[in-house]
């Protein structure tokens, strides 16, 4: 059995999760990575994606995050999400809404830099939609 560490998932509105976990998979800006206990200190920004939390009790929970960042220490991991929902409670309409907002952003973008950023975000959102919604 893997060693447990403290994991906190915080959204601006409230503290969503605070418990001992064995491993957490987070969607870093440069790809998904797994955090175990005694991880080297890392600070990473997140892309929209699914985090998978394996609790010390052995259950697996999945949450959907839309951007944010994660602060990893050897004995703790804090994820500050811009907004987060449990995958079970997710509302397909909400994602549709976010995607259409992102599309507008792409159209409104004034320069290439912001357009490519907006397009990347849109791309990540559609991938996320494909990943969590059963086709």
């Amino acid at each position, binding site marked *: 059995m893997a060693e447990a560490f403290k994991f906190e998932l915080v*959204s*601006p509105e*409230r503290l969503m999760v605070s418990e001992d976990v064995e491993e957490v998979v987070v969607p870093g800006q440069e790809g998904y990575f797994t955090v175990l206990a005694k991880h080297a200190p890392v*600070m990473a*920004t997140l892309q929209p994606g699914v985090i998978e939390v394996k609790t010390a009790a052995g259950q697996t929970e999945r949450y959907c995050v839309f951007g944010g*960042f994660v602060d990893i*220490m050897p004995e703790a991991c804090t994820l500050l999400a811009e*907004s987060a929902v449990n995958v079970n409670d997710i509302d397909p309409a909400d994602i549709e809404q976010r995607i259409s907002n992102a599309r507008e952003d792409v159209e409104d973008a004034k320069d290439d830099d912001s357009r490519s950023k907006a397009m990347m975000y849109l791309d990540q959102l559609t991938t996320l939609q494909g990943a969590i919604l059963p086709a």
Partner: protein
Amino acid sequence: MPSLKDLRSRISSVKSTQKITQAMQMVAAAKLRRAQEAAEAARPYSQRMGAVLANIAQTLGDADDAPKLMVGTGASDTHLLVVCTAERGLCGGFNSSIARLARDHARKLLGQGKTVKIITVGKKGYDILRRDLGSHIIDRVDLRDVKRLGFSDADAIGKQVIDLFEKGEFDVCTLFYSEFKSVISQLPTAQQLIPASADGDSDAETGGDAAYEYEPDAAAILSDLIPRNISVQVFRALLENSASEQGARMSAMDNATRNAGEMIDKLTLDYNRQRQAQITKELIEIISGAEAL
């Protein structure tokens, strides 16, 4: 001397006022609990954010390429004041004390020959400031339809502020709101948003001195974090404000209820005294009438 009938209707009208103020007090108490919970629930996020920011800022040091949002434009000619107030009145001096703080600040800046721009959040602040600073108000945000304050509301305001900053519309941004100390004490506060002031929450816990690895890299994270931090600060201010508003309303309505009670007591006393006087007068009339026979 008011007649008995006048007194009766006075008493009944004060009684119904008392009922209203009492109901408002109870509503405010219930809302206060919710607002307080929301403010407390949001605290971990802004604390962690402050800690992380302080950490990165420390790592980066005083690099020349530090984001403008953090170090400012170097000038301080144009000031943007974001004034957060309530949507409703009847909450004691809550709105006027925030507005007064903002107005004094604006006057001071104008006296120094600086340009002042104002964004008001909430209807009451706009109503108060419109009178003598109307020409400086560049925008107003209405939260009237917002049932439950969400991060997205604050985020919209934060984005607007950043937008204006990037267009070079102002150099310094100050946020005005009321800090929630306790139910009976709310403190109007001015907080500098841009450039980020060094103090604030950062001294809470700086996450130790661990050598972090950054992904993608520290500068990129910082440029991502700072705009978000502004939204978080606005969000925190709005939550503090809504808790303060309910607290202020609760004590104002408590006072009003008590005053109405005192007034009713006094009026009832007058009423009874007059009623007795009238009975005595009638008795004297009857007796002296009987004696005359």
